[in-house]
């Protein structure tokens, strides 16, 4: 404690907006979770712990951040996250909303003074509920009730983000991070819709915006606690300097993985440099040649741009973790973590993405597939950090380009890939393969290209026999493991079959190719899309 902290800053408490006012917490343990703060320090026990690893959603809260819109206006962005793996000091400068706060919105927007007075003496008849809560009650959407606060928060985030009721698929997407073991979900989805049928009550955002605005003037957050230091630099220069100064410090982004090191493995993190306060690392910009995504852009924001650029990202974006994890997690975190089952890397690799690494003031660029050296080992030097990821636009002037990513797991949502496969091919006018890149997750110690298979296809006609040769070559590219997610042989088989799927889909995309009628469904999602909802009789209790 006697050592000096980062020279630019004095120690200060963390500050955030919670329960209608600015709250200060003096030097919390850097790895104290938001959930522990709520339940143990505030006795705000509405938020539950179901798994302590961000997989069940019982702990869902909503975090508000100031964002500047295109026209320069400051707006409040409200997003659901998992409080069980979010560390409390990362809330600095933000707003926190838990289930206890939601009914207050209904009260504040209600003109009736009487209701307001009664709130401390509630009996059944006068319990004030937010429309989302009211709809959950009326649709019989809770049974044991333990997951319910988490669902309420995910739905409230949706309700605030969408003035009109989203479609079924969108609603389910918002619920992708919430598990319910009792209801079978139908009534919860019904409640999501029914909330829009009730008088609309939204958060009075200006108060929160003003409060957060006042926090923006604060100094950089640095403090020491029991010999452990927490730094939250605000600008890249400070980050670079800290990184040089404390090369052993743990870099912390969305904590969607690091959070589990604490809650599940009891690891000690040592000094922590939190990257999430560096606004410049969240910038997503399109230049003439490529798209550059700042390392700290959330997966939600990154996928929004990537899917708009190429629909080949769509399936992956939908199946990648859950909404709350995408809200908290960052593209840079996923890339830097280097997990063999990280899902963003195979598509980035086949799109020739480069990773920008910064050390002090020096920035170097590395093709992403050269970044991964071995199991959980990357080319990142100890005093470097990932600054951004650059993804070149596909050059489709001379060639026909196809790109797709597939994720295979036991469950459609919020699961870890058995195999993730990404494919990008350029075909010339003669239907020959001009360039092909294929990369897989779950098949090796790192996300890895299928170099043999690529080599076999290069220059060949894009047809079934070429694909079959490449499928054979995949066997020499990969020697995957068997584990509880999938066996070795299953992984090998679907790696080959996904190439077949990619080929078949390229045919239906490519009307210029001379192929016979291919009007059959290729993916399960095609089947859901064709379901005739008019046959639903509905449930009429």
């Amino acid at each position, binding site marked *: 404690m006697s050592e000096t902290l980062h020279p630019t800053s004095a120690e200060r408490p963390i500050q955030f907006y919670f329960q209608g006012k600015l709250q200060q917490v003096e030097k919390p343990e850097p790895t104290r979770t938001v959930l*522990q703060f709520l*339940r*143990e320090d505030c006795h*705000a026990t509405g*938020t*539950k*712990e179901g798994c*302590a690893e961000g997989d*069940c959603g019982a702990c869902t809260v909503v975090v508000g951040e100031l964002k500047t819109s295109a026209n320069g206006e400051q707006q409040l962005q409200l997003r659901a996250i998992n409080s069980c793996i979010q560390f409390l000091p990362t809330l600095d400068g933000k707003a926190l909303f838990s*289930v206890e706060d939601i009914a207050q919105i209904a009260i504040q927007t209600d003109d009736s003074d009487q209701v307001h007075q009664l709130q401390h003496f509630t009996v*059944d*008849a006068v*319990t004030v*509920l937010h429309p989302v*809560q009211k709809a959950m009650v009326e649709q*019989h959407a*809770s*049974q*044991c*009730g*333990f*997951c319910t*606060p988490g669902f*309420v928060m995910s739905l409230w985030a949706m309700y605030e983000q969408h003035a009109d009721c989203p479609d079924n698929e969108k609603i389910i997407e918002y619920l*992708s991070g919430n*598990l319910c*073991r*009792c*209801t*079978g*979900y*139908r009534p*919860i989805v019904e409640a999501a819709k029914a909330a829009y049928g009730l008088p609309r009550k939204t958060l009075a955002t200006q108060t929160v915006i003003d409060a957060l605005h006042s926090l923006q003037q604060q100094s950089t957050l640095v403090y020491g606690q029991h010999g452990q230091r927490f730094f939250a630099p605000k600008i890249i220069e400070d980050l670079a300097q800290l990184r040089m100064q404390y090369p052993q410090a743990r870099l912390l982004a969305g904590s969607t993985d690091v959070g589990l090191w604490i809650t599940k493995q*009891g690891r000690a993190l040592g000094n922590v440099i939190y990257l999430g306060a560096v606004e410049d690392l969240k910038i997503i910009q399109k230049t003439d040649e490529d798209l550059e995504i700042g390392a700290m852009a959330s997966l939600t924001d990154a996928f929004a741009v990537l899917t708009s650029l190429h629909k080949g990202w769509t399936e992956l974006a939908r199946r990648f973790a859950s909404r709350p994890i995408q809200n908290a997690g960052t593209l840079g975190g996923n890339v830097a973590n280097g997990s063999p089952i990280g899902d963003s890397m195979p598509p980035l690799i086949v799109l020739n993405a480069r990773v920008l690494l910064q050390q002090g003031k020096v920035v170097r660029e590395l093709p992403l597939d050269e970044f991964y050296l071995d199991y959980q080992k990357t080319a990142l030097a100890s005093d470097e950090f990932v600054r951004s990821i650059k993804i070149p636009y596909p050059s489709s002037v001379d060639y026909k380009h196809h790109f797709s990513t597939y994720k*295979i797991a*036991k*469950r*459609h949502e919020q699961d870890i890939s058995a195999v993730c496969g990404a494919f990008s091919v350029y075909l010339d006018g003669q239907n020959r393969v001009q360039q092909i890149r294929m990369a897989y997750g779950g098949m090796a110690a790192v996300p890895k290209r299928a170099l043999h298979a690529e080599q076999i296809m290069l220059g060949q006609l894009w047809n*079934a026999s070429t*694909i079959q040769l490449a499928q054979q070559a995949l*066997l020499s590219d990969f020697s995957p493991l068997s584990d509880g*997610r999938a066996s070795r*042989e*299953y992984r090998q*088989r*679907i790696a*080959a079959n*996904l190439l*077949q*799927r990619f080929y078949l889909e390229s045919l239906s995309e490519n009307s210029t190719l001379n192929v016979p009628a291919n009007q*059959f469904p*290729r*993916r*399960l999602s095609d089947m*859901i899309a064709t*379901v005739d*909802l008019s046959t*639903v009789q509905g*449930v009429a*209790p």
Partner: protein
Amino acid sequence: MNQSIHQNINLQDDISDMHQLTAMTAKNCFIGKSIVHESAHLHVSGTATYIDDTLELTGTLHAAVGLSTCAHGRIKSLDLSWVYAAAGVREVLLAQDIPHNNCGPIIADDPIIADELISFYGQVIFVVAADTYQQARAAVRLAVVEYEVLEPILSIQQAIQAQSWVLPPVELSHNKADKKLAKASHRLQGSASVGGQEHFYLEGHVSYAYLKEDHTLHVLCSTQHPTEMQHLICHALGYRAHQVSIETRRMGGGFGGKESQSAQWACIAALLAVKTGMPVKLRLDRDDDMVATGKRHGFEYEWDVGFDANGRIVGLYIQLASNCGFSADLSGPVNDRAICHVDNGYYLDAVRIYSLRCKTNTVSNTAFRGFGGPQGMFPIEYIVDDIAYALGLDPLDVRLLNFYEETGTEMDAGNRNTTHYGTTITDNILPTLVSELAESCNYRARRTEIASFNVSSPIIKKGLALTPVKFGISFNATLYNQAGALIHVYSDGTVLVNHGGTEMGQGLYSKIRQIVAHEFSIPLADVRFSATDTSRVPNTSATAASSGTDLNGKAAQAACISIRTRLAIFASELANTDVSNVCFRDGEVYAGEQHWTFAELVLSAYYSRIQLWDSGFYKTPDIHWNPAIRYGRPFYYFAYGAAATEVAIDTLTGETRVLRTDILHDVGQSINPAIDIGQIEGGFIQGMGWLTSEELYWVTSGVKAGHLFTHAPSTYKIPTAADVPAIFNVKLFNNHNVEDTIHRSKAVGEPPFMLALSVFSALRDAVAATVETDVLTADGLKQKPALQAPATPENILRAIYTIKQQSLEPLFFESMP
């Protein structure tokens, strides 16, 4: 005095009937209404209190468990010096600290803390109590343990080889099955397996124990069985029952996982509370909960079935081998229920069942919604599909042909309505129910459409199946079919209810509130509940076997009738009229010319020293069971249902989607249709998870042999909102219970779980659609492709490649569409 008692008894029935008639038309009639869950407003606002939410007493210690990292072995050394030295640690509990370290619901073969012998990977070997939850969890990681590793038994097959049983094998033989099999015109032999299932209640196990004066102990426990917790804590401590009380307001889900399995944690909290003198809370981390608590039993089956040319079953031999884990727990009754549900809805004529209760070095398996019933039914539905395929018939027709005779129809000749355990079925509605569902879901036309779809679709294949459920209601063990209730009417006219049942989300309190409010014809808001508490209603049965409302509803009703009868007599005396002229309606009591609000009458009754509280008791009539020969009428009645499910599979990856499910289910006269539909939908989705994405995977070899790989929701995948059938129609079958149950309703907790067998059957149908060349048995019958449950993408793809006679290992690539 005698006169008055006599009058009471006679009057009860009359008043009950009269009241029924008036109340059913009254404003305050709540029976059959979709009233929201009594705690719904608390659930949504985060104010429903679960045990970990209760305000902690000063000095509360938090416990965490140290688990073994070896599946079978002996502890050579256990060095806890770092544990004792860790920050905040106040106490460490070891096996030798426990007065009576043998726990267990039936046989006391579960150590609370393993002594020396380790029986599974993840067994508790010591417990720490510390100032904070985080400190306790940090401390347990610091133990240094050395094991002498013994060879573990990790699979059913290994257990059968080693003749390793938790309980001896059981054979039930009915009507000379072997002889009938030998004479059958067609026979099929087969085998299949179905995995276990993690309960994944969202609230993990938690107990909070504290000493009160004079060696008494109060324990808040998330349990379905407070009385058993009381007994087992007493046993562990050497206390007597009146020293320990257990309180349970609500659980965050139970599903059978908090029937016997809560005992170990309740005992540990109690032992530590006594040892330290401080309040102690033990809340299991999710991973510890998944590793250290029992699950649904996985089963393996082998069978030989005989049938005629029409597909009618004439005899069946079947071996049911279950993975019980390392101890007996509830495995005896679970396997007995499996035996009793091998028929599902079918008259099997002649049956021989061989039931193996395998002992393995895995966590001890336990109750889970259906309690062996689903595992009993799984093979017969598989077999019926095999028979239909072999004969080229629609499986629905084979099902209809094999059903028990429908009660009260011309079909009911009385020769095909007795089960293999000696029960004559008197309420069968399956033929009508199934036909109605087949009609409403357009089964026949869709069967044709799907066949033509599959011809034109090389990658995606569809499947369809309609499967029935017949599920016996009552605890197999007759003694558990009893319940008590204690009802207070306060002098202001409000009512507080206590009964032996526990609330785990199933809506038990909600239904009982309706029953009680109905008996007094007062508003629902005037009826509240105290937490279930062994010091209020003693000697309770587990809230299990779907029986909560049947038992506790009747007990609560009986208590209400006693109070109401006294009030009616009092009112008749006030109004100077005959008691038959007294009527309770819409919060008022009418007697002759006079009437009062319920509250007014109650207050007058109080002033007149009339007893305003009473208890009620109920025992299920007419049931009997001889456990030695497994014969009798264990079930008071049966609940029925059927589901038709259409699925699509991806033949490149094995991934699946449920496209549509139609359910028609029998709850008798529903007390609360919304709650019943909630049980049906939730049960179906949970069953679908069991048969599709929920796979338990234990490491098979190496230093981590026996370690549960799927120890968290990251690896164990229960269904999400995206997995719900895209079209999901659920309807209640128009029926009433032929037996005199509470308001002629039927139990609904477990039966719908088994509707999900339709999902598995449909998936197998879709897999079979990939067959190009038939595989024939030695007798020339077509063999339906095998599929293992759960039907994970890998198992589906494995089945498809088996059909192609290829290994899943991609050594061959065929031509593409």
